[in-house]
């Protein structure tokens, strides 16, 4: 296969990971909302954990984006 074509196919495959991450991030917020609607007075105290969980889940999507960018711009 052509070297450049393989690079672009690899970058496209790496983006599938971002779709999976979207599910994970939405899961974090969804579970927070479920808990917050059951117990609204306790929801404010858990807001810090919410942002921490969001950033940790999003990190893996950013890792896969990093692989795609590496393939596109860094690999010669």
């Amino acid at each position, binding site marked *: 296969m052509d070297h450049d074509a393989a690079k672009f196919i690899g970058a496209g495959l790496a983006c599938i990971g971002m779709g999976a991450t979207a599910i994970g991030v939405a899961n974090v917020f969804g579970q927070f909302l479920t808990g917050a609607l059951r117990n609204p007075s306790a929801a404010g105290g858990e807001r*810090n954990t919410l*942002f921490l969980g969001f*950033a940790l889940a*999003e*990190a893996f999507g*950013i*890792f896969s*984006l*990093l692989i795609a*960018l590496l393939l596109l711009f860094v690999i010669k």
Partner: protein
Amino acid sequence: MADSPIEQFEIHQIVPLIKIAGHQISFTNSAAYMLIAVALTAALMLGATAGRRLVPTRMQSVAELSYEFIANMIRSAAGEHGLKFFPLVFSLFMFILFANVVGLIPYTFSVTSQLVITATLALLVFFTVILHGIWQHGLHFFKLFAPSGVPIVILPMIVIIEILSFVARPISHSVRLFANILAGHITLKLVAGFVTAMIGGLGVLGWFAGTLPLAFTVALYALELLVAFLQAYVFAILTCIYLNDSLHPSH
């Protein structure tokens, strides 16, 4: 066109200094922006609290709020003993926050989009955890890798997995911040490039069609500002959680 989103991350030498073992050490644009981040932090904290009023002014209130924010974060994650690490966590948080936000100004260089800088900060935290843990608890620190209540049969495998996840910490710690800022800046550059591409490609019609990518750029800027704050907060709170492991190593 494929090359231009990456050119913003090039390092330019401003003042060449010395040569060590064939590598040119110089004062680069990266170093200049790191100095700007430190200078802004110092100006905020020192300048705002210079008046030391009992009823604070607005700027002094900002400085006090940021102090309390980090102090509460450390207390909740690492307990009261963790406050001895307050200078480290506060410096990390403020440096990363100001470096992220200053990097969003057009034509500036984003310091935290360089892996070597975020890796240095993450390794600083990693070695602080190990060295402080060994200094305070001796070899009992390594009980971190053997949680209590694990059956003897699977203990070797658990120890290996725990060690691997411990060593993976600085990697994920640094790459999370680096990749978030890098991806954000590349996306900004790309979408902003669409505005000029539309004008160039469609002529007069492009002036009207170009407002769509422009609006998207504005929304993306708001998202990047949120990411700047969030990534600084996540770096700081993960630092507190890792420091908690060195302060109280038994599970």
